[in-house]
């Protein structure tokens, strides 16, 4: 079955503080894709994400979300975002888990209006989906690392988004926590057909679990992992010719996209 494109970049140049950070980016992400965004530090990964949200000036080219240019696009509740280092918040901030997740229900349409019962019902559904319904009234500062991850995903999912964008949300998490986090995202991708874009430095998880890889270092290269035989073809373009990643598929744990 033909998959619908949800995000399309066409020859896009993105400026940041008068510098050209992304050059001639052209790629398409379809509904249900699970995309790992990789590349060296300072290569423009976060800039690429910010361009999707129309936060940065685009010098050339066009970006389409759900077939509309981002300038004309207004249904931002179809997209959810978890920013860089989200779990490293101020632990003294006076919020409970349900209060934080409820903030995900704010949309352009309900600014200045109180949340309704349907919004709080959605909060409960999202918390239960992430398996943290029992800690809804706990303070966010008292949670474990794993619970914080689930809480932020619950906040993102409470909008019922079609695209979930994550910018290195797991920086500082140990290997087991990381594995659980990627497993959780894989489940959402497979069961809810959620399109996921995630900036990650964990290449093993990217190649184990994701369907596409977006390599970013000013220029942008997209590869379909399910078809690409040697991952280094894409990676060398952004990390340099000296780079060599040895990928052992048999070391991948849990459920995979390769079906």
């Amino acid at each position, binding site marked *: 079955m033909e998959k619908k494109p949800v995000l399309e970049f066409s020859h896009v140049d993105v400026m940041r503080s008068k510098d050209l950070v992304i050059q001639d980016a052209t790629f398409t992400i379809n509904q249900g894709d699970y995309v790992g965004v990789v590349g060296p530090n300072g290569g423009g990964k976060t800039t690429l994400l910010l361009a999707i*949200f129309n*936060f940065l000036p685009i010098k050339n080219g066009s970006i389409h979300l759900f077939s509309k240019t981002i300038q004309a696009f207004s249904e*931002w*509740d179809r*997209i*959810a*975002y*978890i*920013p860089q280092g*989200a779990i490293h*918040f*101020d632990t*003294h*901030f*006076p*919020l*409970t888990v349900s*209060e*934080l997740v*409820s*903030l*995900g229900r*704010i*949309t*352009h349409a309900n*600014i*200045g209006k*109180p*949340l309704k019962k349907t919004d709080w019902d959605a909060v409960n559904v999202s918390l239960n989906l992430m398996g943290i319904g029992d800690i809804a*009234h706990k*303070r966010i500062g008292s949670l474990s690392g794993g619970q914080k991850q689930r809480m932020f995903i619950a906040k993102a999912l409470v*909008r019922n988004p079609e695209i979930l964008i994550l910018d290195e949300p797991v920086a500082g998490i140990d290997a087991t926590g990381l594995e659980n986090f990627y497993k959780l995202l894989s489940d959402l991708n497979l069961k809810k057909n959620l399109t996921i874009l995630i900036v990650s430095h964990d290449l093993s998880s990217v190649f184990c679990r994701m369907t596409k890889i977006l390599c970013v270092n000013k220029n942008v290269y997209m590869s379909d992992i399910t078809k690409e035989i040697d991952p280094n073809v894409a990676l060398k373009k952004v990390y340099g010719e000296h780079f060599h990643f040895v990928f052992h598929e048999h070391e991948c744990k849990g459920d995979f996209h390769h079906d």
Partner: protein
Amino acid sequence: MIDSVINDILTLLGFQFFQYALIGGIISALATSWIGLFLILRHESMISDGIAHTAFGGIALGLLLGINPLITALVVSIIAVLGISYMRKKELAKSDAAIAVMLSLGFSTGLIIISIAGGFNVEIFSYLFGSILTIDNIDLFIVSFLGLASICFFGIFYKELLSITFDEESAKVTGIPVRYFTFTFNLLVAFTIALSIKVIGVILVVALMVLPGLAALQLKRSFRGTMIMTVCFSILSIVIGIFFSAVYNIATSGVIVFFAAGIFLITAVYHKIRYNV
């Protein structure tokens, strides 16, 4: 003894000046408590001290020109807030340095105006240390207008403000016009400081803005619970302060801050015992 105090309080409640003071004080408590809590959460508590000191220049200007000093203080406070925001945005100075620039500029302007005018010591003293018991109907109108504007804004947009305060980037993505909200919040900080000057004075504004919120945060409640406790602590401090100062003829602002600090100490001890930190 208690009977005599109760009699004094009942007698005071019959006076118009005391009723004005209570109304002005409670409106001020409601406005300062939410702004103060958000300033703490944004790590910008000292902006209230900086703007209040800058407003001193506006008070002196008002006295010199014969305009209500609360109005000139408001105008100067707004200029100070915008100046601090501009310096931060253009990276001319970090937050603390930008506050220092406006504070010193405003305060020195006030001193120059006072020396040119050759005095108005009594009036200046009442704005430096507050004089809620002498609030007249014009001042009460100004305090009520500014306070209610601030309270209404919070009542309508509290969830958006909370979202921006917790994580500005995510708030932008959810469709909240962060720039407009931040601008309006800054204006309301100026509004609230201007109205607080009559209640507590330039010197102690920061205490009224910070202590109730800080005390509420020690209780580790939800945001809703923390907000309610902040408002309660603020109203309690101001009302007790007004009664005590009227009955015992002590400086009102001093008593208000003394009680607010006392509440903070009690909650800090509770926090230490309850959470063993």
